[in-house]
């Protein structure tokens, strides 16, 4: 009995069910709760796929911070979504199916998961593993890749996250409570 495969299929099926429910639901609080469950499920999928760091981030940001941000937004808006008369759904449906088919077609060219001969393990990864401690001087390889080899990339990402945080703070109205210190930044 292949339990890993069963767990994968079940978690993904849960995610599909929840996504459909989110689309069909009108109660925004219930949708926020469902998003929390969705995030927990995707973190579970990451864990099963052995991507522990991604699962950490997904759990902290997806299930933790973003649920709270959504609820904070709910305090500013209505609890119910206004039903809107939708137009003909044929064209969006075709676009979605074509995009999905293209994505599935794209996966056929990917190397198998955990394949040691995949290009990702041969391009620069051996150099990182062998030389990063001598070149950078940080024992943790991931840290030296993020902070040194891809330093500009990380700087750009941090700027984007900072901007998004400032925008969210501005939208959620910190101005109501005047404080001496600056409000804390979320990552």
């Amino acid at each position: 009995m292949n339990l890993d495969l069963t767990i994968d299929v079940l978690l993904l099926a849960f995610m599909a069910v929840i996504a459909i429910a989110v689309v069909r639901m009108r109660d925004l609080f219930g949708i926020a709760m469902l998003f929390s469950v969705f995030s927990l499920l995707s973190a579970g999928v990451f864990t099963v796929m052995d991507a522990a760091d991604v699962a950490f981030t997904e759990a902290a940001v997806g299930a933790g911070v973003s649920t709270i941000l959504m609820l904070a937004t709910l305090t500013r808006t209505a609890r119910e979504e206004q039903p809107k008369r939708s137009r003909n759904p044929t064209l969006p449906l075709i676009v979605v199916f074509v995009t999905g088919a293209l994505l599935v077609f794209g996966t056929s060219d990917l190397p198998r998961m955990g394949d040691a001969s995949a290009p990702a393990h041969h391009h620069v990864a051996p150099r990182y593993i062998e030389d990063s401690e001598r070149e950078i001087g940080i024992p943790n390889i991931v840290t030296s890749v993020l902070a040194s080899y891809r330093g500009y990339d990380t700087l750009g990402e941090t700027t984007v996250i900072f901007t998004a945080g400032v925008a969210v703070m501005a939208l959620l109205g910190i101005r109501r409570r005047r404080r001496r210190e600056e409000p804390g930044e979320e990552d």
Partner: protein
Amino acid sequence: MFVAATVAILVTMVLAIVRTLLGPTVYDRILAVNMFGTKTVLLIAAIAFMSGRTDLLDIALVYALINFIGIVAVLKFFEYGEFSRGGRGRP
């Protein structure tokens, strides 16, 4: 044994999802989400022991913490309508 535990946890997850989707009241949904988070913690722990990667237990601990904080935030939202207030008698 871990396989049996995993199957049982998955069945419970299905039940929790059903309650989240049907849940007539808000409190059913909150409780179902809380239980779902607990089941995720248990599932990850079971997978960790089954596959021998005990470092996954750290993730299970993080989930437990996030689950607790998230539920407290949700309940505060429902009791007060905002997050910045304390309990009764405090500003």
